[in-house]
């Protein structure tokens, strides 16, 4: 199992969620975060914004689905300009559904 953390533009969230939903991946956790990247934020005139609003989507998936999900997120969140975000993938040892106590997704 893998935990995918995708940091994307807030205005692209609906698009990403809809395109993942269409492929059958419907469970997410959404967190509003602030961040900056290699460009050290953005400078408009004399003002530097170094904490830009982003949304982090957390998705736990089976190993074989992770490549497909990353591809879908890439395609739907891409605008081509700086600030499209990043995707991080990490391992999950165990997952539990609290209602049933079952292990697994």
């Amino acid at each position, binding site marked *: 199992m893998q*935990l995918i953390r995708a940091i994307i533009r807030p205005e692209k969230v609906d698009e990403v*969620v809809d395109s993942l*939903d269409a492929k059958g991946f*419907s*469970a*997410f*956790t*959404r*967190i509003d975060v602030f961040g900056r990247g290699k460009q050290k934020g953005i400078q408009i005139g004399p003002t530097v914004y170094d904490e830009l609003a982003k949304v982090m989507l957390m998705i*736990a998936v089976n190993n074989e689905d992770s490549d497909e999900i990353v591809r879908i997120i890439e395609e739907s969140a891409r605008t081509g300009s700086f600030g499209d975000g990043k995707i991080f993938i*990490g*391992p*999950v*040892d*165990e*997952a*539990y*559904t*609290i*209602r049933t*106590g079952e292990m697994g997704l």
Partner: protein
Amino acid sequence: MKEVIAVLRMNKIQQTKDALAEAGYTCLTANLVYGRGKQKGLYINPLGNITPDDKRAAIRFLPKRMLTLVVDDASVSPVVDLIMQTNRTGMIGDGRIFVCPMNDAVRVRTGERGNDAL
């Protein structure tokens, strides 16, 4: 060392924290998050009945609380059991728990590393 990420109901959070503190797990990070599961959020038809099959989405993401605890390997299963017991109502939306590996931890004040820092 493991990271336990639990996405829980808003109104269960105090109970969960109390239960964890009583069992000796006092350190945690709490976050306000929005989430949805297999049911794709909450769908309510004009009569007020909740029907998961109805595609007129009312609430795509539901507010949840996320607790993140970093615990040593031996404490993972007691913590998971405790969170599950405290939060189980038997209805959809009870939440989910993820256990992820964590390589190292550092206490900023003293510079301790590993299990000493927990």
